[in-house]
């Protein structure tokens, strides 16, 4: 009878030890790979640069724009009002605190949207909510908002309104370039702008 007890104890001990070394599956908040893949395939995480600009101009307190480029790039040029969390320090405690704030809409951007999307996938996997990616990134933001191109008079009214909004927003951020003194210098610089606009137009299609 004693023997039986002994066997029972040993058995329970061995199995208990076995459980100790089982693969640890404790990441409760983590989203399963299958589910994450479907989320990744959904385009709803992308916000257009117009939507974000609109919220910036209105000083929406629930919006945090996060620049995931390096600190040096951030210093050279960044969207006014954004904060810098370089991609390699994404998982530091201070950054995770921002991610964990519930009522904020966190929007990632990088030069394009590749690095921003990587940040999004990692954060989404860890279970963070209300995170987004700015579509097209900084390059697209710059080209649509700062360098907004004037539509032709024949364009529909929506296009003209969109242009006026973009122009207004860019003046909100950077002031009106063609006011005040310094006319001559201004003029030469204005010419540069026009020149660049021409270059930006891609030639499509050739013929005989």
């Amino acid at each position, binding site marked *: 009878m004693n023997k039986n007890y002994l066997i029972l104890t040993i058995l329970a001990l061995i199995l208990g030890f076995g459980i100790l070394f089982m693969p640890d599956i404790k990441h409760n908040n983590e989203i399963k790979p299958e589910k994450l893949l479907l989320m990744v395939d959904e385009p709803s995480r992308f916000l257009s640069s117009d939507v974000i600009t609109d919220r910036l101009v209105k000083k929406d307190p629930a919006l945090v724009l996060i620049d995931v480029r390096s600190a040096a790039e951030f210093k050279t040029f960044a969207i006014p009002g954004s904060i810098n969390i370089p991609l390699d320090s994404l998982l530091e405690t201070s950054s995770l605190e921002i991610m964990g704030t519930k009522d904020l809409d966190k929007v990632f951007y990088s030069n394009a949207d590749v690095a921003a999307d990587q940040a999004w996938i990692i954060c989404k996997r860890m279970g963070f909510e209300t995170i987004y990616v700015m579509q097209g990134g900084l390059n697209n933001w710059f080209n649509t908002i700062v360098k907004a191109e004037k539509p032709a008079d024949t364009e529909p009214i929506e296009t003209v309104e969109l242009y006026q909004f973009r122009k207004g927003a860019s003046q909100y951020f950077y002031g009106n370039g063609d006011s005040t003194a310094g006319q001559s210098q201004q003029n030469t610089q204005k010419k540069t702008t026009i020149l660049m606009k021409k270059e930006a137009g*891609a030639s499509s299609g050739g013929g005989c």
Partner: protein
Amino acid sequence: MKEELNKTKRLTIAVVSIVIVFIFGLLTFQAPELEYKLNPEKILARSNNPDFSLNIMQAKELIGKPDGKAVFVDIRNIISFERSHLENAINMPLRTLFDKSNQKTLKSFNKKGVTVILYGETARQAIDAWMMLQQVGIQNVKIVDGNSDALQSKVIHDNVISTEISTVDLKVLKTMTSSTTQSSEGTAEAPKKTVNPKKVEASKGGGC
């Protein structure tokens, strides 16, 4: 005497039932089919290392080579794939990457040391797939940093820039902010011809 026997019997029954429960548990226990092989820190470290990305030129060099060292995987949807795709490319739409058959194929490539080269509608779509595959342990994967149209076009680009390069033209900004910071800058500011990086897109036109 009889009581003694009963006790032993009860004990034996207890031991046997416990063992049966444990064995049953062990038999039905199976690891989830897909699980993360990399923790967030590791996948972040890999995201920061740009080794995984091939530019269009590098990718094109690999197209014609049937040496079995690399295989192109097209992650666009079936319709786009049917319309046009690289020769010998395999179609695995992003959404179906974790399907059993696809996982089997990818794992067998991984075992044989064949590099999987992902390309999609854009570099962003490719990076999505790359992130998901890395995280579930399929590691020998690279992406084409560019869109599938450029990859498939026969035109040779010698000026291939990465998607994540800034194309923001700080000169334009200077002209815009010059009204506010008039005194500090200016005189040396001769209008130079700025060279905008060429777009990666292929020219669609043909000649005769």
